[in-house]
């Protein structure tokens, strides 16, 4: 290949960022409605194992993606029932979902430990993929990567250009006001939570069926939590979610490249592997230290239970 290392890094960065794009956009919609779902890690893990199992038995990556979406939605339905119908604490319920999901995924996944799937071919767009440097990164990727861009456009349009999106944001700011003008607060929060869960499941499916493609316990490796941090980093704006996700994808890939050529650098691989986690802490600090930025941009009712007076 005449492609240089720059192209290779760009291609890999976009792939590594894709599960974060999908999961964080889903969580963004959930949080915009005022619901804080800390279960993303567990949802992704269950999505990953469900997708892997489905793809393994059916031989179809598409069926795998669908199974991931369904599993993620089902997990978030349990969360929604706890927090929206039974008014349980959202932080504790999200943690419960993460612990449960990671455990459930390990349990189900035991049967598939170290099994592999055939690699899913990329969808190469003729001509455009020939563009130097950027061509392969943008026009020779897997279907799910293109889907993640559609998702980005769809979420941005929905939140800021559509009536239901406006309603969803209004509910996230003040559920009581939205209820008083007759909006179905709980129903919309349910839908927003289900959407977030479905996207978390798809992100997990991308990891286990399209990206690696294999199942190992602990393969989600904190990406669910990083997606949550990304939403804060993005100050709840879709385009910054996209930017942040690729930034993180870049950190993950660059450390892998350095590890690959790290024999002469003598940096222990564990230190390089911990870079994405340090980076998460760093961006959280950078964004959060300005208290008013967070207060102005976060949905005002985020994490607070709401029960409409009958």
């Amino acid at each position, binding site marked *: 290949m005449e492609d240089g290392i720059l192209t290779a890094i760009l291609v890999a960065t976009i792939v590594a960022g894709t599960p974060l794009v999908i999961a964080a956009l889903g969580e963004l919609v959930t949080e915009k409605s005022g619901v804080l779902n800390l279960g993303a890690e567990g949802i992704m893990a269950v999505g990953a194992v469900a997708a892997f199992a489905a793809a393994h038995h059916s031989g179809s990556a598409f069926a795998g993606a669908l199974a991931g979406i369904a599993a993620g939605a089902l997990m978030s339905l349990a969360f929604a029932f706890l927090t929206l119908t039974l008014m349980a604490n959202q932080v504790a319920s999200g943690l419960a979902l993460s612990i449960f999901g990671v455990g459930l995924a390990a349990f189900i996944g035991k049967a598939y430990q170290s099994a592999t799937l055939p690699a899913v071919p990329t969808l190469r767009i003729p001509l455009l993929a020939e563009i130097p440097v950027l061509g392969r990164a943008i026009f020779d990727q897997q279907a799910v990567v293109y889907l993640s861009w559609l998702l980005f456009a769809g979420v941005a349009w929905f939140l800021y250009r559509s009536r239901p999106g406006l309603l969803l944001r209004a509910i996230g700011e003040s559920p009581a006001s939205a209820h008083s003008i007759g909006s179905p607060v709980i129903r919309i929060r349910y839908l927003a939570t289900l959407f977030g869960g479905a996207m978390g499941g798809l992100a997990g499916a991308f990891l286990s069926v399209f990206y690696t493609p294999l199942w190992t316990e602990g393969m989600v490796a904190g990406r669910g939590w990083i997606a949550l941090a990304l939403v804060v980093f993005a100050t709840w704006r879709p385009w910054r979610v996209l930017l942040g996700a690729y930034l993180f994808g870049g950190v993950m890939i660059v450390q892998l490249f350095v590890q690959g050529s790290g024999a002469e650098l003598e940096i222990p691989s564990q230190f390089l592997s911990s870079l994405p986690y340090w980076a*998460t802490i760093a961006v959280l600090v950078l964004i959060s230290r300005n208290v008013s930025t967070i207060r102005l941009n976060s949905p005002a009712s985020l994490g607070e239970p709401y029960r409409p007076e009958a």
Partner: protein
Amino acid sequence: MRDRLPRLEARAEPSAAMRYASPLIAVALTLAGGLVVFAALGKDPVEGFRVFFLSPLKDAYGIAELLLKATPLMLIAVGLAVGFRANVWNIGAEGQFILGAVAGGGVALFFEGSTSPLLLPLMVVAGAIGGALWASIAAVLRTRFNASEILVSLMLVYIAQLFVSWLVHGPWKDPEGFNFPQTRMFHDAAMLPILFEGTRLNAAFLLALSALLVGYVFIYRSFPGFRMQVAGQSVAAARYAGFSAQRTIWTGLVAGGAMAGIAGMAEVSGPMGQLTEHVSSNYGFAAIIVAFVGRLNPVGIFFASLLMALLYLGGEQAQQYLNLPSSISKVFQGMLLSFLLGADVLVNYRVRWPRAGA
């Protein structure tokens, strides 16, 4: 249609009885869920139930193992409860546990060969400091930069795991260990004394009981504990009373970190006897469940730890005798917390059943 569904009706006062009944409801639902899970997996549910929940307790050795597993859970959960009561969400006890194991184990390796009776106390202190320092990263970033302690303490878990992995693959690896990623075995003076001959139960259990006692006094009988309580119930009230929000965050995180650190130290100088990559069996996360199921109350935490320890042992039994992955424990642990959170609705609401024929 709508009138046929049971409806929730707000109680005028939270029900004190339900606060204590709801963990019991959650336990009952988890046990019932266990029967369903075993049946769904094609096992005889009664046999599964017996193997998982009863067989670990069949003899004195089993009881000692239960107390051994409950020890780190008690230690961590009581520390976390201090923070959780004030809405300080330290979710990274797993990482603080690892750093405590590293610090305590480091002391054992550094003073290898010492027979001083001060060695063990020094290791306990080192473990507490290691865990507290790791937690204080989250405290600094929260108090100085407003960064969410939930996400920061969690990221520090992954970093701690990689750090201990580097230690045992690199500088601390046992040179005569056939290249296994582990340190040398600790010598006798660095091992916690066994309480009962023929079991593995060690002095850390007594440490955990004292921690529960100290935790009880701190939470219910001390002024700093009262300040934390006020901060947890109303930030505005705490500010009005002049209680420092910064101090609340520091106290919550350092208490959790120090206790998790002691638990980590007790694990390496107890049942493990050396530092390895897999120093924690998820205790840091399981202890979060223990703290909630125990109602953030040291007495409740005592019983919740025993229950959670039983889930651990049951998982091992299920692997051995039912040929099920031991991660089934985590499934039950997650179920327990979810059921508890769901059952808690009954504290503030009563269920209004539709009248027959209406």
